[in-house]
């Protein structure tokens, strides 16, 4: 399977990364090289193999059902959460107008 410029443009759009024509031209052969190389995985018969889901067997834990379990990251941290926002207003994240 190989990707052309249009496909790369489609993927870039799905990934929300703006790319110029020149970048797409450059990226397409690079991606093709990588995809061609990973193609060798198809020669392995994996019909009887389950895909890995956990690399080290571990149990799934539930945390205690308490509010603000961790004092540093629990609730009531609005200003800390907003501290690095490029545009914070009135205690919210600011974004460009979404609804006309």
């Amino acid at each position, binding site marked *: 399977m190989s990707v052309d410029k249009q*496909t790369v443009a489609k993927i870039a759009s799905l990934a929300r990364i703006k790319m110029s024509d020149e970048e797409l031209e450059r*990226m397409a052969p690079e991606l093709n*090289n*990588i995809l061609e190389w*990973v193609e060798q995985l198809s020669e392995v018969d994996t019909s009887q193999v389950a895909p890995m889901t956990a690399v080290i067997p571990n*149990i*799934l834990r539930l945390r205690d059902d308490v509010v603000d379990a*961790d004092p540093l990251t629990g609730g009531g941290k609005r200003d800390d959460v907003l501290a690095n926002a490029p545009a914070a207003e009135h205690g919210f994240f600011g974004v460009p107008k*979404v609804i006309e």
Partner: protein
Amino acid sequence: MTDFTSLGVKDIRDGVAKGDFTAREVATAFNAAVAQAASLNAFIVTTPDHALAAADATDAARSKGETLGKMAGVPIGMKDLFATRGVQTTAASHILEGFIPEYESTVSSNLWAAGAGMLGKLNLDQFAMGSSNETSYFGNVSSPWQKEGSNAPMSPGGSSGGSSTAVAARIAPAATGTDTGGSIRQPAAFTGICGIKPTYGRCSRWGVVAFASSLDQAGPMARSVEDCAIMLEAMAGFDPKDATSLQMDVPNWEAALSGDLSGKKVGIPKEYQMEGTDQAILDSWEQGKAWLKDAGAEIVDISLPHTKYALPAYYIIAPAEASSNLARYDGVRYGLRDLPDGAGLQDMYAETRAAGFGDEVKRRILIGTYVLSAGFYDAYYNQAQKIRTLVSQDFEKAWAQCDVILAPTTPTASFPLGSLDADPLTMYLNDVFAVPASLAGLPAMSVPASLTKDGLPLGLQLVGKPFDEQGVLNAGLAIQQRAGFAAKPEKWW
């Protein structure tokens, strides 16, 4: 007067505890060495005040007769992938430039609680994606090592290249690293130092900027096996804030260190004998076998049949996870925002990510997005996860025959900066020996073995059973005791 910058973790900890010198003297010496080494570009920001404050706290605790922590008085470098409260954390990216965390990663928090201080935040490949430290937004890191008779800047390896450079250049006694597909071991090998990636889950991932969550693991980088053991003890431990954290006690690795390998079996995987591997690497591997045999171990040939598929599987799995993890950089909650006049929300996302990510990061996000997209998921991602199962099963079978595996860390020694960047694929091959242990979540370590005829360091890799960091450290110690690796880079910076 002691040259404090020549001391390692254990020397500093013990010297401070005994009162031979103060933690402040040590921190002052390293702060000066860091300030003087700007041309290496190992640090993105330096934090001399943090190092001094931690040192003063240690000195005060000692004078009051309090029990000192495992890393008391030791100033370290912190890879800039760990969130540090009040100190810029960038993952060497433009998109996180200026990000000042309001919280502290668990690993760094553990280290400060053990008495360590921070010299600064270390440069790395952007979002830990790279094997040469050439993808950082803040510029390449130069290895302190140079080829004999040349002053061309060499790669310190990646992604933990600031860490490897700082430790090899003696501007930090130790540093944190993270390893997703070799990012602790390969830079350690390139710079003649030690580095261990513990079993997946030993060190909390909480507060570590995520790259590929099923693979990311933190670990120490230092100049001796003992120093790695001490620092790993301080870093590791159960953390309820990380869903994959191991709920196990941290063993006392330092106390149980022993270079006597009597009764141990060391496996030599025949598939690691790959075409294109430097003769010098093969020779050092032979030497490694002889050393371990001398330490009392029995050498056995083993087979890990799916080795050649590990790297391509990794380059599906890691980008797939990265494309998902990096979706959070959207210009809304933190980091860069690029909002052209009159642009809407979707344009803002696309412009922000175009401006904020470097080429290698974009490449991996695109690969990841592609292999996860409808119609290709089974052929690529699912197939890669099945291969990952097979790679892991290869190791499980091998453990019936041996206790630890010996292999080279890298297929070549370090290379000049700029020499491999024409083809991303050539760069990826650097991690061909490191990736299988990552896919299987196993503890693995690189220890310095020898120098090439050009005077560049070579490392040997030890891979152990799950949870058997001790076995890896002990085999590493056996090599360290016999290799007598004392070479250090000549100071040119």
